[in-house]
């Protein structure tokens, strides 16, 4: 990591901080202020898009820890959102738990589910692991349809507390969670667990030789990933008010992976960039296409996916390290500008 000019460190604690300069604190303050006033300037369509994007961000941050850091590919993240959504709805509706407890309970439940479906990772890697998580995606969806209490293919209505019927309040809860989730993901990636995950990703044999218990940490990565998914799913259920199995499809799992790739695998800011970039782009093109009647309704409804596929391919060819790498280059340039020595 390079530092801005003129910053020198006197202690390791300072050197290890994420934020170094007053300017950086200032920018962070402006960002928070922006997020606080944002909902009052958006119409309900765009407010919905922002809320949905924040939920997706939480899901993708979880995937960032499992796939980006620990190198274990998962094609089932959407299904774990479903686990969180169903679990929190059932805890709330059937057992009358207060909402916060339901959400936390759902997250932990989803995390434990993640451990079960992470077990194949102790034996297989790469392509085979991807296949086994794909199986997880289908098995979990099957459970949603067939398990008693889960409402079959009709799904469930989500009891929504009065407080959250206002979209603005919902925005603050969800955006707040997304911001915390980002901070936690960043902290995990720069402390013990994060380094161990990357060690396993880069060289699992050497990781074992330096004393890392591979099985424990691989399952921990699955747990954290599904914990994030569980929270995202629980929030999602509050956002849409009615859940069924179709909301947690394989296609969504693939979107999440694609966002991670476009943002840059292995970097927290990459996950954030990827989610914002892809979400806005796909929503933007869909809205635009809807304005253009020549394209017809069929194209308009699928243009988001087409653009997504195109962007993904372009990134894989031209910038496999993702947006975060571009951002690093830009920051380096800005720091030494205008003196490029």
């Amino acid at each position, binding site marked *: 990591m390079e530092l801005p000019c003129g910053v020198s460190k006197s202690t390791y604690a300072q050197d290890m901080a994420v934020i170094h300069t007053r300017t950086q604190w200032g920018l962070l303050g402006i960002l928070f202020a922006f997020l606080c006033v944002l909902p009052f300037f958006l119409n309900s369509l765009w407010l919905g898009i922002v809320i949905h994007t924040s939920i997706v961000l939480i899901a993708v941050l979880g995937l960032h820890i499992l796939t980006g850091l620990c190198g274990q590919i998962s094609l089932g993240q959407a299904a774990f959102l479903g686990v969180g959504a169903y679990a929190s709805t059932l805890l709330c509706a059937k057992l009358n738990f207060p909402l916060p407890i339901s959400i936390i309970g759902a997250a932990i439940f989803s995390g434990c589910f993640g451990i079960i479906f992470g077990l194949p990772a102790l034996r297989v890697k790469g392509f085979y692991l991807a296949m086994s998580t794909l199986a997880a995606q289908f098995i979990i969806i099957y459970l949603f349809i067939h398990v008693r209490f889960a409402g079959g293919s009709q799904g469930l209505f989500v009891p929504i507390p009065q407080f959250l019927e206002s979209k603005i309040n919902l925005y603050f809860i969800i955006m707040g969670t997304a911001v915390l989730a980002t901070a936690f993901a960043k*902290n995990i990636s720069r402390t013990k*667990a994060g*380094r161990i995950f990357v060690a396993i990703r880069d060289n699992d044999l050497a990781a074992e030789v330096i004393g890392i218990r591979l099985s424990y940490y691989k399952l921990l990565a699955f747990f954290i990933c599904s914990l994030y998914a569980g929270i995202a799913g629980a929030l999602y259920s509050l956002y849409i008010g009615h859940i069924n199995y179709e909301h947690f499809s394989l296609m969504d799992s693939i979107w999440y992976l694609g966002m991670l790739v476009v943002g840059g695998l292995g970097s927290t800011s990459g996950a954030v960039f990827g989610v914002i970039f892809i979400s806005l782009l796909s929503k933007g093109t869909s809205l635009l296409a809807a304005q253009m009647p020549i394209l017809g309704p069929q194209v308009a409804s699928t243009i988001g996916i087409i653009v997504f596929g195109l962007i993904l391919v372009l990134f894989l060819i031209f910038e496999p390290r993702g947006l975060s790498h571009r951002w690093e280059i830009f920051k380096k340039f800005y720091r030494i500008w205008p003196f490029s020595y």
Partner: protein
Amino acid sequence: MNEMAENNAILKVENLELSFGGVQALKGVCLDVKQHELLAIIGPNGAGKTSFMNCVNAFYHPQEGRVFFEGRDITNLRPDQISRLGVSRTFQNIQLFVGLSVVDNLMAARHFKMNYNWLEGAFYFGRARRAEVENRRIVEDIIDLLELEPVRKQVVETIPYGLRKRVDLARALVQDPKLLLLDEPMAGMNAEEKEDMARFIIDVYELWGISAVLVEHDMSVVMDIADRIAVLDFGREIAVGTPEEIKGNPKVIEAYLGKAAE
């Protein structure tokens, strides 16, 4: 601290047999390393030197034989358990975490000295923060010792081979090992780099009073720094002794000259 440990060998290997299909990599190797001793293992390529180390840290499982570390049978432990007991190693073909910076490679290796869980890490508060800073200090000491300051923040992928070899050594050292296994730490280096590396190894060995097993081809280095030398040839141990004894040993001369004459 206790008499037993003082007198006994820190590492004792009995009758190791290891084969891969038809290839017998180790044939009944018995070796021990005493407390604060630097044992060098020499022998032509394919003699089984790396296999020997791999058996000690359970990277390979020998078909027969036992490995004792500080009097404890470690033959059936996993590599991660052995590393926690105080056995660290470097690799002949460097095995670093290429996506992490030099500092993070070393911090990763100190994971079992950091007594906090992932959730505390997520908050980066209290115990976690203290452990991070404290361990960073220790890591920086090793970085100073091995003169890695200029590249400390660089991703390992981007640094040259000679420095990577040094990071590999640093990663073993930050674990505070009691026994260090060094597999050709100077392979592929130029004379100057070799000299630096030899100096680092001697420094550590003398300052810290640890024990080490060194595999190295460069005879002048080995003769200089080893307390004892073991010679392997085709998986068999053909001689053990002080550098002087090895120099004059006819079997050794034959193995080496025979090799050269082919």
